[in-house]
């Protein structure tokens, strides 16, 4: 009984998991902050020169790479961001020659890393950057599990002070009114920095101007609830290493159901379990009482029966005794009557 009740209740909690997907939280909507900035990457413009990588390395004072940034043979193998590299450019084989795509933190509007972090080390800033605070990070790496774009990297080589490393959208430079390092260095303006809304307009305009050149989709406009960093491309996005199966539900929406079940459990389990306890105790008590009564009854019955039996025995014994006496008396009387008949008759009447 216990388990089935559990199942039932948790089943209800589980069902609610699937419900709150479309609207953000009930009827409330949380748009991006009006100041949210972003970057638009245009894959038809990128030439794979790695200048953005070099710029990123410089402005973030990251360790020197194993191979120089002007060594373009690096592009032959697909790479991902790591603890020494906030951004990488990868080469993909397109329908008409190579296509390049820059990878870095997409600065989600509803960051999965922030949603996952149990010390709030990640924060979506009003200017769009998702920043990281190493001073509270425990190093659990749940952010890396959560990130749908597989961006955060970890300093596995650091024994005691490992950090999670990822692009900061050059938040410190933005504060100084400068462009992100990679954007500023792009020789083809394949990267455009600006208010996110304006970027979407630009992207739409470009797609409309060259309908044959672009896939009619802005990657990041809605993916995972939308990102600050967005992409347009002439190749299907899945061909340039961007997953098209992420869906539009943001990370907080994905976990909202499970989180919503938590307080319900705390609220209802004491009631439920206390109830079960009380019921089972009461059952025990009732059973106990019944047993006691039953025993009492049984005892009483037994006693009664014994008494009855005794009584019967007694009465039987009495009758028998009486009979014996009678017989004796008779005998005596007969004996007496044999002597004196009339006297005997009288004596019998008297009895």
């Amino acid at each position, binding site marked *: 009984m*216990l*388990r089935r009740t*559990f*199942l039932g209740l*948790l*089943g209800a909690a*589980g069902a609610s*998991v*699937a419900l709150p997907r479309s609207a953000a939280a009930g009827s409330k909507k949380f748009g991006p902050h009006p100041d949210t900035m972003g970057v638009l990457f245009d894959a038809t413009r990128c030439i794979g020169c790695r200048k953005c990588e070099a710029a990123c390395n410089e402005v973030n004072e990251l360790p020197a790479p194993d191979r120089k940034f002007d060594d373009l043979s690096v592009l032959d193998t697909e790479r*991902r961001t*790591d*603890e020494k590299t906030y951004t990488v450019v990868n080469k993909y084989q397109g329908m008409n020659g190579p296509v390049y795509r820059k990878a870095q933190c997409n600065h989600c509007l509803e960051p*999965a890393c*922030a*949603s*996952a972090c*149990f*010390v*709030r*080390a990640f924060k979506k800033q009003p200017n769009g950057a998702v920043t990281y605070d190493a001073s*509270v*990070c*425990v*190093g*659990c*790496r*749940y952010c*890396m*599990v*959560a990130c*749908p774009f*597989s961006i955060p*990297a*970890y300093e*596995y*080589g*650091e*024994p*005691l002070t*490992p*950090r999670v490393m990822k692009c900061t959208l050059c938040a410190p430079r933005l504060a100084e009114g400068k462009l992100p390092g990679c954007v500023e260095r792009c020789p083809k303006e394949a990267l455009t920095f600006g208010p996110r809304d304006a970027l979407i307009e630009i992207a739409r305009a470009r797609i409309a101007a060259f309908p044959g050149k672009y896939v009619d989709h802005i990657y990041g406009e809605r993916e995972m609830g939308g990102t600050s960093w967005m992409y347009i491309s002439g190749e299907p996005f899945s061909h340039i290493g961007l*997953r098209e*199966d992420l*869906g539009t539900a943001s*990370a*907080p929406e*994905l*976990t909202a*159901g*499970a*989180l919503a*079940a*938590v307080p319900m*459990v*705390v609220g209802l*389990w004491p009631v439920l*379990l206390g109830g*079960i*306890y009380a019921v*089972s105790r009461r059952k025990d008590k009732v059973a106990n009482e019944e047993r006691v009564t039953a025993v009492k009854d049984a005892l009483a019955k037994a006693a009664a029966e014994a008494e009855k039996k005794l009584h019967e025995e007694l009465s039987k014994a009495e009758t028998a005794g009486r009979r014996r006496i009678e017989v004796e008396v008779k005998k005596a009387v007969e004996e007496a009557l044999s002597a004196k008949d009339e006297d005997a008759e009288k004596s019998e009447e008297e009895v």
Partner: protein
Amino acid sequence: MTVETVTAERKSLFTPFNIIAAVILVAGLVVTVMRFTGGLGAVTNLDQNNPWGIWISFDLLCGVALAAGGYTTSAACYIFGLKKYHSGVRPAILTAFLGYALVVFALHYDVGRPWRLPYPIFVQQGTTSLLFEVGLCVFLYLTVLFVEFTPAMFEWLGMKKIRNIVVKGTLALTIMGVILSTLHQSSLGALFSIAPSKLHPLWYSPYLPVFFFVSSICAGMSMVIFEGTLSHKPMHRLMDKEYLDNHDGLILGFGKATSLVLFGYFAIKLIGLAYDNNWHYLTTGWGAWYMVEMLGFVALPSFLYAVGVRDRNIPLIKWAAGLTVLGIVVNRFNVSLVAFNYFLPSSQRYFPSWSEITISLFVVAIGVLAFRFITTRMPIFHEHPDYKDAH
């Protein structure tokens, strides 16, 4: 009795068990030094794509699931009033307490800055994180388990007064334990609900928390049976008549319950499959592996339990328990490792290194040793003579 045990230990210091344990401990200490001097990279095969390895899959996910015996047994005994299982409660609580303590211990290896483990609770609370929920619950539940365990310790130490105070709170502690367990067992599953794109659809489900919770019940009860079987032989001399008399009854009762819960688990997994319309994946290689898990490690043990209970076949129930425990391990590994990052090419997939396995063994060895240390000294498998009929 305590005195006897200690002398018995001394006689056989070089038993195979002790030698293996010693080897594991030494190897574990070596890796520990490497871990805290060279970083995670020096001892693990973790990389940027695979941030969680077997220290999470085995030590955390399996550890927590298999320690679920604590709350299931105490709930059965104290809340549902199944007093005949009373003799099974203490071993289960002890196993759970050690299990959770070791989970926390193992986490010190896995997280980057272990001394900050209290941060999420005391410094900055990331309340939207399921890991926060897990952390908070594990922290509280470990405390609850410790308090639940203390009567045995106080009896051993002869501290009657305080022991009686704690025992009075048994019901509250048990309910607290069930609440906390419900929450973090399910939240461990919900951890992965944030990454639908990374976990294979056959294992990802909005019902993940429910799956984890229900399977933890099976895991807990099977672990009680399984662990009872394991400890039966070496600990037999410590077990009193009540424990031994009730043991078969406990196995039968738990076997029946587990069989039923496994049935329910199978049913809700099926519902999950239908809910996301994932049938077509069943014909793929992943589907075959999923079927192995579902048929070989859920349906089969459920059936074996049922047969065992009907025939009062104790050995069969014990085998079924072993299979269930293995099945839970398989499930937790599937969710966190095998089906996680399923889309990556095989060259980028994770496989544990020897030093990671060593630490996992090290943790298990410490658990077994602690279990032995405590059971040979404290009244776990037997009742303390002073507290006969105290329940």
